[in-house]
């Protein structure tokens, strides 16, 4: 373990709402974030750059599709909105509108979908990458199990949830 790590506390994590498209459960998300951060730090770091343990602060911002689309274009040269963008300086930007859309697709609540993106961002800051399919699959599996653990649920199956039939 690098010197100083033992004394250094975990980063502070804050969640801010910077959009008006939907009303997020901010207090719940903040509680979730403080539960998820130590869970992530308990894992082995991923193969990439992992600034998370050294950061003083992680700032999570909930934004609109328009805002995340602008970041997507300006930082990654990709047009259109996306779910979550993570910056190595400790910033996780999440679109509430994309979360609402994907929540419908994956039969999850919007709240849990937002929580999933938060875990995804934390894993990026902890060296996990989703550039190639093998890495993406590993990251996907880990984020689902971490999400389930932090929500106090059994891990959801990875891909078949959206096609699950109602049981009635």
């Amino acid at each position, binding site marked *: 373990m690098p010197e100083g790590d033992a004394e250094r506390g975990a980063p502070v994590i804050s969640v801010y709402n910077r959009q008006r498209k939907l009303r997020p459960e901010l207090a719940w998300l903040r509680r979730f974030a403080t539960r998820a951060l130590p869970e992530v730090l308990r894992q082995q770091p991923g193969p990439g750059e992992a600034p998370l343990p050294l950061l003083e*602060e992680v*700032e999570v911002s909930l*934004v609109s599709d328009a805002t995340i689309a602008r*970041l997507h274009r*300006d930082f990654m040269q990709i047009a259109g909105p996306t779910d979550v*963008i993570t*910056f190595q*300086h400790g*910033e996780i*930007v999440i679109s509430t509108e994309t979360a609402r859309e994907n929540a419908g697709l994956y039969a999850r609540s919007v709240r849990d979908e937002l929580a999933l993106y938060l875990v995804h961002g934390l894993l990026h800051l902890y060296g996990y990458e989703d550039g190639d399919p093998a890495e993406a699959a590993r990251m996907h599996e880990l984020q689902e199990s971490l999400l389930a653990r932090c929500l106090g649920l059994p891990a959801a199956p990875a891909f078949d949830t959206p096609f699950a039939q109602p049981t009635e």
Partner: protein
Amino acid sequence: MTETLTKTETRTELDLPWNVVVHNDPINLMSYVTLIFKKVFGYSTQKATEHMMEVHQKGRSILWSGARERAELYVQQLHAHLLLATLERE
């Protein structure tokens, strides 16, 4: 023997640099602030990020120091990007 002494005094006050200061605000995203610093001052990602973190953690950062006219122009450009920027003198 007669000696003539010529004394010249220069007021150095006029030459003091003007500082372009950016203050923390609750609106702008950290990433966006970094991008503006790169755009306005031509700073590298690393330098722009360092200034952004200083603003974020200490509440303010001096982005540039120098002649008044140029400093004013920078402040105007920062305002155009909706950042909280002021001109200060040391």
